[in-house]
């Protein structure tokens, strides 16, 4: 046991010999977590798509359209003069621009000549979302007029109007009634969040916190391979040959030490999540501990196996960063797994990052407890067992 502690302590000293390690240990993970959470804001921030509106008509109808857009959950209208809005759009500082032409009025709507121009940036996902929101606003505003027009048509079919004035009066009365019915219209759809044990609310910042935690902890654990390469090239591994130290003792010392450092790193990031981002990481500390340790053991064991294949420290460092980033991306740590095609969602289950992320989200988003994360922890420990076995089998001091 003493040997294991001694090896672990020696590796910690090597790793933190340079102050620059703190950059990767805590500074960059915190910056990334914060910025990516800023990209998916929560709380009181308005994360709706910015929709530039150039209202050249300034009629009652155009005001109604803008008012409807303001109530949208998808877009946030920002009224600007046409020249300024056009300039911002041309410089791609906004995804969508709605131009309300000068002739846009109730009369043009009645005449069937009302139209709006929506300009969208190509290759931009916000465009179709904004288009849907504008169509919804149009539908709401024009539905009363459509209803009044239909009422006039039906009435005329039953008994023709004596004059245009009578038809117009009928239209106006119908419009008033339709508008009243619309205002009194009840909600027909209710959304209920999935029933988690203590009704934890979805917080997109949790995705960022969990994803970045895994990314920044897995990369240095994969870099255990660099420790092996460093010691092998320095000749210190060969010296161990002359001591009564078994391979498994040495590997346990290396992995144990790095896993312990990783757990400290994770606790700092979890603390940041709780203190700064107000995330609900602390509701079941035992479950959190299980998933964190299982994740770290899996990544550490993979780093060990990598270390038995890689020859130089430089290669190990590059491959660790690359493998860590690719696995984080594919495991849903950067972008939610739900955005991936179904086949890819299934395929990425071969990655430990997918299971680590799933376990973290069980805790942070689904309000899960110890029993909920046991399957993910089990799979992660399976990864650890397999790769540790391969590592011990392939490990050579020289």
């Amino acid at each position, binding site marked *: 046991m003493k040997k294991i502690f001694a090896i672990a302590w020696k590796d910690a000293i090597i790793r933190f010999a340079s102050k*620059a390690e703190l950059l*990767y240990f805590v500074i*960059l993970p915190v*910056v*990334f977590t914060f910025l990516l959470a800023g990209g998916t804001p929560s709380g009181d921030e308005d994360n709706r798509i910015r929709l530039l509106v150039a209202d050249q008509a300034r009629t009652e109808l155009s005001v109604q359209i803008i008012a409807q857009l303001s109530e949208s959950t998808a877009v946030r209208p920002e009224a600007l003069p046409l020249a300024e809005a056009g300039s911002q*759009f*041309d410089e*791609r500082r906004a995804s969508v621009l709605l131009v309300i032409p000068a002739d846009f009025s109730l009369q043009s*709507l009645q005449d069937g000549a009302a*139209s*709006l*121009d*929506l*300009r*969208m940036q*190509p*290759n931009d996902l916000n*465009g179709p979302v904004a*288009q849907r929101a504008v*169509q*919804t606003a*149009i*539908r709401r505003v*024009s539905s*009363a007029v*459509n*209803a009044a027009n*239909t*009422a006039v048509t*039906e*009435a005329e079919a039953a008994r023709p109007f004596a004059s245009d004035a009578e038809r117009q009066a009928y239209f106006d009365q*119908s419009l008033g*009634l*339709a508008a009243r*019915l619309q205002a009194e219209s*009840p*909600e*027909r*759809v*209710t*959304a*209920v969040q999935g029933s*988690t044990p203590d009704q934890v609310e979805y917080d997109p910042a949790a995705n960022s916190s969990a994803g970045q935690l895994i990314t920044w902890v897995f990369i240095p654990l994969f870099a255990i391979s660099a420790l092996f390469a460093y010691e092998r090239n320095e000749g210190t591994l060969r010296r161990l040959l002359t001591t009564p130290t078994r391979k498994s003792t040495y590997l346990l010392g290396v992995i144990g030490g790095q896993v312990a450092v990783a757990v400290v790193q994770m606790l700092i990031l979890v603390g940041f999540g709780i203190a700064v981002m107000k995330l609900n990481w602390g509701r079941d500390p035992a479950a959190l501990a299980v998933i964190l340790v299982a994740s770290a053991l899996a990544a550490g064991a993979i780093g060990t196996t990598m270390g038995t294949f890689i020859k130089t420290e*430089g*290669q190990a460092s*590059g491959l660790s*960063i*690359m493998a860590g*980033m*690719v696995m984080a*991306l*594919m495991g849903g740590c950067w972008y*939610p797994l*739900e*955005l*991936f*095609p*179904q086949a*890819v969602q299934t395929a990425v289950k071969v990655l430990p990052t997918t299971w680590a992320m799933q376990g973290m989200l069980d805790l942070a988003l*689904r309000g899960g407890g110890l029993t909920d994360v046991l399957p993910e922890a089990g799979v992660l420990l399976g990864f650890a067992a397999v790769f540790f076995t391969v590592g011990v089998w392939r490990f050579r001091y020289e």
Partner: protein
Amino acid sequence: MTKLLLIGLKDLKLAFRDRAALILMLLAPFLLTLGLGFVTGRFSGGSGGISEIPVVIVNLDGEQLGDALVDVFKSDDLSELVTLTEADDPEAARRLIDEDEAAAAILIPEGFTQSIMPSAEQFAGGNAADPVKIEVYANPSRPTSAGIVKAIVDEFASRVEEGRITGMTAVTQMIVTGRLAPQDAEAAGQAMGERLAESPGTGLGIALNTNTASGETNDFDVLAYMAPGMALMFLMFTTSYGGRSLLAERSQGTLPRLLVSPTSTAQVLGGKVMGIFFTGAAQLFILIGASTLFFQLKWGDPLGVIALVLAAVFAATGWGMLITAIARTPAQVGNLGSAIMLIFGIMGGSFIQLEALPEVVQWFSKITPNAWGLDGFTTLALGNSLAHLGRPLLALTIMGAVLFTIAVIVFNRKGIMQK
């Protein structure tokens, strides 16, 4: 000039012989771009968005409108977006969501149709039937998919409500003006509903003319954004790697040897800068070529691409030289360079679109070659030419020149290039 070129080409060869460096120069951006292609569905024929959202629907209404909503989810229009499962038991459907087996459950209660179809009593001014609400039971860990399902149900409900208001308005007005007897209202309303359903007309009374900035349809190719983002991020690694070689040569003694040869300090420094520049340009051209070849990615006007690559590499080289000037050892350059690569990557929009980042970050992103480079590559991908690259090219050139000047001043102060 020959000496400059020789030193530059020597560094280019050294960089491409270093397998460890090649991992981060070429392999990592290529694999990440490949991964992004897979996760976004770019390689499986998808348009880069969500597809096959698992949805459970329970239709307890069993009448006209409940069936219509089921038909909406079964329609060809939604066949790629949604994978529908019909169930009979609301509790079983909810359980599927709680167990993360589906993104949302749609529960259409009994009496939904009856609560919407206006009765004779309602036409006569009586109380409206109590609204019966469709429930969308959403999976909290799949908010985007659940949001899409909710939007589809909302749109359906909105159309149903429009129909109800249209029918109520027309029939009520006819009763008020004596065109229709109150006892005939319900039948007339139903007949009108059927008529409108058969010929729904244009739908919206206001035409919405849509067009993209380039006048084309809004086809989304996620790789057109992500591939340049990854290439530019790892370009920062390459330029700091090149800078590291300057300090490494100094500590290994090859730099002083160069300086005692009939080669001026400016030539040596210029040659090193040229080596970084060549390596960075070669890296970007290889990545662009590979993504064009393997992913059929269209980068746009070749002249524009060449100009932009050279300008982006020039600006990134400036950063590489500045990092080298500030750092004391090759290891410090490596650490600082990798950190700046990642920070510029996220600030410059390589991970998520700049628009999604806080405004202050968007402002600071202007100091990164990544943001200007991405701006330029996006401009080209939209079908524009070299003539439209004025701003990014100017910004990148100024950035490179300013950084290079500062680096030279720091080099001189620290005496790095002294014999």
